């Protein structure tokens, strides 16, 4: 018997409230579970690393902010032919070539050690590279990646002059800060303040320290190809006579575990000592060296938690 439950105005209100609640509850239950799940996620709590600013550890001749990652070794074959304007007799430079072979290994995700040997001046080089800052998005967003780079190069040429080429006199050092930002998935730009210190220079007038400001970047053409450019502007103070700013243009082609980089540049060497403080070619006069880098990645130590 429901006659005692005679709706009074306040009862009506209560029932309406109940009905309203019941309605919202059923509406909720029928609501898409996925939207509920997504509304559950507190969005900006995670900081995400921006990865793959460049395809390779090299932009063209110089380094990028990229490091191979822990346990990965990169085998790098770099090649520069002779100048294009050397004429048909030299097959437009293809008769002549300089080579650098290099290995770099990711000790951690941020720290890399590398060694190399260039045929130019029979130079051995070794370097350390450390990712000091990594570009991130999300809660604690970091606008740029900064990688610190230090290398030394040893000229091992036999000498015939009377001057004694002791070990310290054969050494040159490079210090670089690589500052890059990936603006979009296609465009990344990099700034490279550089110092090259040579223990020995040709004349008393020349400076041991050469300062340069490098600019570079890549623009992706497709998912696996990109257009790269690199320019090192030598600061007037300490600029060696007859040395030009290095300019290079190139294309990156990526396949599974390889990156092929093809380029033209006015510098013959492939380490900082040569291309920052020793570029003599005039880009617009046709003193162009055609060259390539081949990068091959090997995983020496797989990440933890994976078999084999």
């Amino acid at each position, binding site marked *: 018997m429901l006659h005692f439950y005679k709706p*009074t105005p*306040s*009862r009506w*209100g*209560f029932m309406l*409230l109940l009905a309203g609640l019941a309605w919202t*509850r059923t509406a*909720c*239950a*029928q609501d*898409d*579970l*996925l939207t*509920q*799940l*997504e509304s*559950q*996620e507190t969005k900006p709590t995670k900081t*995400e690393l921006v*990865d*793959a600013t460049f395809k390779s550890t090299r932009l063209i001749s110089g380094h990028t902010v990229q490091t*191979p*990652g*822990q*346990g*990965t070794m990169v085998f790098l074959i770099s090649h520069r032919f002779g100048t294009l304007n050397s004429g048909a007799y030299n097959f437009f430079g293809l008769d002549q070539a300089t080579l650098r072979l290099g290995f770099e290994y*990711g000790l951690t*995700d941020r720290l890399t050690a590398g060694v190399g040997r260039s045929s130019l001046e029979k130079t051995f080089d070794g370097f350390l590279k450390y990712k000091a800052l990594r570009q991130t998005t999300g809660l604690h967003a970091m606008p740029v990646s900064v990688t610190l780079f230090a290398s030394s190069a040893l000229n091992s040429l036999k000498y015939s002059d009377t001057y004694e080429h002791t070990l310290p006199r054969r050494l040159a050092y490079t210090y670089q800060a690589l500052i890059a930002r990936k603006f979009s*998935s296609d465009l990344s730009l990099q700034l490279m303040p550089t110092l090259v210190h040579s223990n020995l220079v040709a004349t008393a007038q020349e400076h041991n320290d050469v300062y340069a400001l490098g600019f570079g970047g890549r623009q992706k053409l497709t*998912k*696996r190809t990109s257009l790269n450019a690199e320019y090192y502007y030598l600061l007037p103070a300490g600029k060696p006579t007859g040395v030009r700013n290095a300019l290079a243009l190139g294309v990156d082609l*990526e*396949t*599974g*575990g390889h990156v092929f980089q093809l380029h033209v540049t006015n510098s013959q060497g492939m380490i900082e000592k040569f291309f920052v403080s020793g570029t003599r070619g005039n880009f617009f006069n046709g003193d162009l060296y055609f060259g390539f880098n081949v990068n091959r*990645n090997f*995983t020496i130590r*797989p*990440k933890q*938690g*994976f078999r*084999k």
Partner: protein
Amino acid sequence: MKPIYCWPLLVLWLLCVPKAHAQKYLTRDGVVTFFSTSILEDIEARTEQVAALVDLNSNQVAFTIPIKSFQFKRTLMQEHFNENYMESGRFPKSSFSGRILDLNMEALQKGGSQRVTVEGDITIHGVTKHVQVPGALELQKGSLLVHAYFSVAPADYNIEIPLLVRENIAKIVGIRLALSCEPIAQLSLTK
């Protein structure tokens, strides 16, 4: 009845109902692994950041996976996965939303694992497909265990694999899902 009397009732009602209907289960650290086996190379990746919601009242299931959270054995594989294949900048998440078709609540509450079929929409790389996948449910110590193993074909989701590496990546990729969801009160969800 004066409104003042309604409130205790209302509060009582609000407290009781969610308890009786604590049939929603949530996790934020579910595990998804996937495998691609080919003659040349085995590829395996894993994430422990899957968010999932299971409603045993309405038999609904939903989960989302942040693509960038997948960890690979090789750094370069992970980079290629995000950059070239999944384009995780553009499509940061994969999701599933569907229904359990043949849930037997009584059997589930008795214990033991129960095989079910789940039907719904799976979204990968921005492409949504309607799929039916087998799975297993189990109630254990109050939490709901969800297991599923199914496969997807990258080609179905516009994931383009270049000719050069076509031999390295399987046509069919196996996906394993393991979730341990905790019960939640409905109110805390809609709050």
